[in-house]
């Protein structure tokens, strides 16, 4: 009975979604011309190389045009980490240590992880440092680094993150982001506005504050995700 009802509801939703979607032609150009933009997308494409000198338009959007969103997004992750900590917090008694849930892993995995771990970290760093040039950026790089840390946590039972360091990284990165934003206000421009030389397109040092912010975001995301994983992994097994 319930199943029938749900299927009926789903059918109606499918139909109602189909109707509007059928009017949106797949692959059609809705942006308008770049020379005379009628949508924000086209405008961003037309302005990014000249005004910001950033090769990756998406980075430009994420960090600059819609940098405010990213600030919020970073806050969401920060909140998730904080909330997770508060939800899963348990008072520890004397002599009780958090135990990683993973069973001792094989020698092969341990050796492999040790080998790969630095490589992953470097890859992550590369991804967010070159965020304004190539695909990728702070979020992707941060996530990759977190994955590397995860690998280590899974392979080595006694691999522990230093919480103080994590907190410092996380906070400092967040503060950097916010401070750069406020610095824009201080120098007489608007919040998060670029106040540094933009350099030339496709240069590593181009795009003004964009790479700096993205690197801060990278560190922050990495620290937060690692924190989340650490909290989850250190749950005492039932």
């Amino acid at each position, binding site marked *: 009975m319930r199943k029938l009802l749900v299927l009926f509801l789903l059918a109606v939703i499918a139909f109602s979604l189909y109707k509007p979607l059928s009017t949106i032609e797949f*692959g059609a150009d809705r942006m308008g011309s770049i020379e005379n933009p009628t949508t924000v997308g086209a405008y961003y494409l037309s302005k990014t190389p000249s005004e910001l000198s950033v090769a990756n338009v998406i980075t430009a959007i994420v960090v600059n045009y819609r940098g405010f969103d*990213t600030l919020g*997004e970073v806050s969401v992750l920060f909140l998730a980490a904080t909330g997770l900590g508060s939800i899963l917090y348990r008072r520890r008694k004397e002599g009780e240590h958090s135990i990683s849930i993973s069973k001792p892993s094989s020698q092969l995995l341990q050796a492999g992880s040790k080998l790969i771990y630095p490589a992953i970290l470097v890859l992550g760093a590369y991804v967010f440092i070159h965020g304004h040039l190539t695909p990728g950026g702070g979020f992707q790089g941060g996530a990759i680094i977190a994955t590397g840390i995860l690998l280590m946590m899974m392979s080595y039972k006694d691999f522990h993150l230093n919480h103080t360091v994590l907190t410092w990284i996380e906070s400092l990165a967040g503060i950097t982001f916010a401070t750069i934003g406020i610095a824009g206000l201080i120098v007489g421009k608007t919040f998060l506005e670029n106040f540094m030389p933009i350099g030339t397109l496709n240069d590593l040092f181009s795009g003004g504050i964009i790479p700096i912010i993205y690197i801060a975001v990278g560190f922050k995301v990495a620290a937060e995700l690692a924190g989340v994983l650490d909290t989850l992994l250190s749950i005492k097994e*039932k």
Partner: protein
Amino acid sequence: MENIDFNQILSIAIYGSAVGLILIGLYAVLMKKHLTKIIIGLSIIDAGIHLLFIAIGYISNGTSPIFSEKGISLVSEGTKMVDPVPQALVLTAIVIGFGVTAVALSLVIRLYRHHQTARIDQIKTLKW
């Protein structure tokens, strides 16, 4: 071969799979009793919407919105770049979705600790 409308097929495939993901996710949320399964359902819905958004930004034969060495010249050549805005937004949405999933799962762990079950119909001490 010429009279096959690729766009038609593509639109059915992409929109269809996006809507399909949304519906499958919804089904899981509404019918499955296990909390973890419900959250899987939620993340499937999210995935469907992300796919839909990217599909809406896509332009046939477009390129990714990254300027290569040739730089601005690409624009004038007539090759189009796909709309970058949906991509930026989906990027944000994915990260936010991850945050929500993490919090949700931590709640599942907590609920399991308290109730010794993860079935949603067993967890209703608060009602009326």
